[in-house]
């Protein structure tokens, strides 16, 4: 089974694709059959992914340096060969596992959540298409294949955000998501082209061996930094980094399972994954690393500061996702593939859990998104309550939940790069010190806003008197339990004292494996910060020692800025309305006056010339005869004055 899976990994994305085709072409009128096909396909993919994971672990570090690659030629031209296929190494195996797991659970969850929806079959078709695209992206051995699937997941995201297309807000959000990410993809495509032009290959392994010797390819360090920065625009768009994060909170207009699958656990981490896959490019030039780290840390802090004041469950979770994605980027910017991928995995568990929990709450509250109307849901929905608590503890970074290990590892790698630790050198150690403080601050804020939401939803009294909350059906509770379990134990694979052949970092890494150890200062710091956050939230929202309304009045200005998301959307709107529309109006004028003027001018010139020249054509024979004779006379005169040879040539040439 393991052998079979390792050598037939292409089946993993293919099975959901078959399911998609079958549902769309044949089984669309039969919702139950559609769901059955989709879930069967993704479950088989999941089994194959598990087998691959076991195979990779059994092989030790064999696959780290020498991934298992199976490729076919997609197309080739003189000097350009593009392949398509599968690259199995620990990183992609981990992603295969996470993506297929979350996709399976979300599809099972959707059985209950989407029950009775008129678009039930369509929903499962889209989910299958998404699974295909995401799994294809994960196993891509070269950047072009990755880009193709990257766009496909973008398409699925668009289709699923706008799934309830009769809702105006959903349509607009879908367009916003697509256009915003496309803005970043433009940079990604440019970056891919620049890599192809300079290094002559898009293969990840070949790029990995060629990029460190970039001077042999006529590149300077500055040039390579620019290429890395342009390439990074794609991940900025896809992974919701500042300033292109605006689409992700709006994307919550889609059905909640979609938010859990696409906009929390899998698609949005594609940017992190891509950056991780091309990390060698960033690692070669420290400037690019610093850029990634700054973007990540700033996004983390920025999004966390917005999440604190939001009033919709899914919006809070969305900003939390943006913030955690920033964390992953920060880890990459600190040069650690391990920390980033580890957090990616644990985040997929607990964030999918929390989104599905939020879906369960919304289901119970008849899709009323305002958390101020909830309260006291603990006694109505115990499973949701306990699993959600696990999720919150995990994201806050409390021992021994999953987030604790991954978040600590990130703090540790940033710490190691900063001047604070005393071991770092290089021009950017001061910068990394600042970033460390930002990351630590974000950790505290994360704990605060998560428990704010938690207490408001599940504790106190139910504030909406008309609601009749109830626990969700089994198909929705089961995924919560599975993800809750993983959110507890999922981080243990990265237990710091695990050694070779056991630790997460032994498999998913770039460079040498470093033995982990407990850094009790950092562990203590992060735990204390998380506890402060939780204590603050319970002080205000659970025990209500301080009125939150008075607090918001006391800190009116920061509250207003945070509540209005720092007016980023308004700034974009202003830019679009004034600058882009203004440019449009100017270009419209250019088109109307100059371009159309030239085209019309050509037409008018022809008409004018015609109106003059048509007078020559009188139709009267006498005029023609006159011209004929005039011509004869002119010829005779020329021949009279010209020399002999010209006369001969006028007469038709000498024979």
């Amino acid at each position, binding site marked *: 089974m393991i052998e079979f899976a390792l050598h037939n990994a292409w089946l993993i994305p293919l099975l959901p694709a078959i399911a998609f085709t079958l549902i769309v072409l044949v089984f669309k009128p039969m919702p139950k059959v559609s769901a059955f096909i989709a879930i069967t396909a993704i479950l088989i993919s999941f089994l194959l992914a598990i087998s691959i994971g076991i195979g990779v672990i059994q092989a030790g570090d064999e696959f780290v340096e020498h991934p298992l690659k199976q490729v076919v030629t997609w197309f080739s031209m003189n000097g350009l060969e593009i392949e398509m296929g599968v690259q199995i190494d620990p990183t992609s195996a981990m992603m295969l596992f996470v993506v297929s797991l979350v996709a399976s659970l979300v599809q099972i969850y959707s059985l209950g959540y989407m029950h009775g929806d008129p678009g039930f079959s369509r929903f499962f078709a889209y989910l299958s298409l998404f699974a295909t695209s995401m799994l294809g992206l994960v196993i891509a051995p070269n950047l072009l294949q990755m880009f193709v699937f990257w766009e496909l997941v973008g398409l699925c995201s668009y289709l699923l955000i706008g799934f309830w297309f009769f809702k105006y807000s959903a349509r607009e959000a879908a367009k916003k998501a697509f256009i915003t990410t496309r803005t970043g993809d433009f940079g990604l495509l440019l970056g891919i082209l620049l890599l192809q032009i300079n290094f002559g290959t898009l293969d990840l392994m070949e790029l990995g061996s060629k990029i460190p010797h970039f001077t042999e390819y006529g590149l300077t360090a500055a040039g390579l930094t620019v290429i890395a920065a342009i390439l990074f625009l794609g991940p900025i768009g896809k992974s919701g980094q500042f300033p292109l994060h605006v689409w992700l909170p709006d994307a919550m207009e889609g059905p909640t399972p979609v938010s859990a699958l696409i906009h929390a656990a899998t698609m949005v981490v594609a940017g992190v994954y891509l950056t991780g896959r091309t990390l060698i490019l960033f690692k070669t030039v420290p400037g690019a690393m610093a850029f990634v780290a700054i973007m990540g840390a700033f996004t983390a802090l920025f999004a966390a500061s917005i999440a604190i004041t939001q009033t919709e469950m899914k919006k809070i979770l969305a900003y939390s996702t943006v913030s955690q994605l920033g964390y992953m980027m920060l880890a990459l910017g600190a040069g650690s593939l391990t920390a980033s991928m580890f957090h990616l995995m644990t985040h997929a568990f607990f964030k999918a859990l929390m989104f599905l929990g939020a879906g369960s709450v919304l289901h119970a509250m008849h899709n009323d998104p305002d958390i101020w109307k909830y309260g006291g849901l603990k006694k109505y929905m115990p499973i949701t309550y306990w699993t959600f608590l696990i999720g919150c503890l995990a994201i806050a970074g409390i021992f021994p939940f999953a987030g604790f290990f991954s978040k600590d590892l990130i703090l540790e790698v940033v710490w190691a790069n900063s001047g604070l630790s005393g071991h770092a050198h290089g021009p950017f150690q001061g910068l990394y010190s600042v970033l460390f403080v930002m990351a630590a601050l974000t950790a505290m804020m994360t704990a605060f806003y998560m428990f704010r939401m938690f207490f408001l939803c599940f504790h106190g009294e139910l504030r909406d008197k008309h609601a009749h909350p109830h626990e969700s059906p089994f198909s929705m509770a089961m995924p919560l339990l599975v993800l809750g379990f993983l959110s507890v134990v999922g981080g243990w694979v990265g237990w710091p004292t695990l050694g070779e052949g056991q630790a997460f970092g032994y498999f998913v890494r770039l460079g040498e494996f470093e033995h982990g150890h407990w850094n009790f200062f950092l562990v203590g710091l992060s735990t204390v910060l998380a506890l402060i956050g939780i204590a603050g939230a319970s002080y205000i929202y659970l025990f209500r020692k301080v009125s939150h309304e008075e607090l918001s009045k006391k800190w009116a200005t920061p509250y207003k800025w945070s509540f209005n998301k720092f007016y980023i959307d308004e700034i974009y709107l202003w830019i679009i309305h004034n600058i882009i529309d203004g440019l449009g109006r100017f270009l419209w004028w250019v088109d109307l006056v100059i371009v159309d003027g030239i085209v019309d001018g050509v037409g008018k010139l022809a008409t004018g010339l015609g109106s003059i020249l048509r007078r020559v054509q*009188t*139709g009267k024979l006498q005029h*023609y005869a006159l011209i004929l004779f005039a011509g004869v006379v002119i010829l005779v005169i020329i021949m009279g004055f010209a020399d002999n040879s010209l006369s001969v040539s006028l007469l038709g040439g000498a024979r």
Partner: protein
Amino acid sequence: MIGLEHFLIFSGTLFCIGLFGALAKRNAIAILMGLEIMLNSVNINLVAFSRYITTGDLTGQVFAIFVVAVAAAEVAVGLALIVAIYRNRMSVNVEDFDWLKW
């Protein structure tokens, strides 16, 4: 003494008169007459060259007779055309005949 050049000047003058008539007249029959004058001036040329350059050889004269015969046929066709046009348009004024541009 009358020489070749007198004949040539005479025929040239006659040609110009004929050409003017053909180009300037409005009446189609007058134009045909102008054409005839031009043909006759050519005939004079032919006969004069034959008389002065190739004396004793009657090529020019024979050629002139041919031209006269062809001119007679051409006039017959031309007049027939004019009669046909007149029947259609009730006019022999060439000012009215500008159908070549359609």
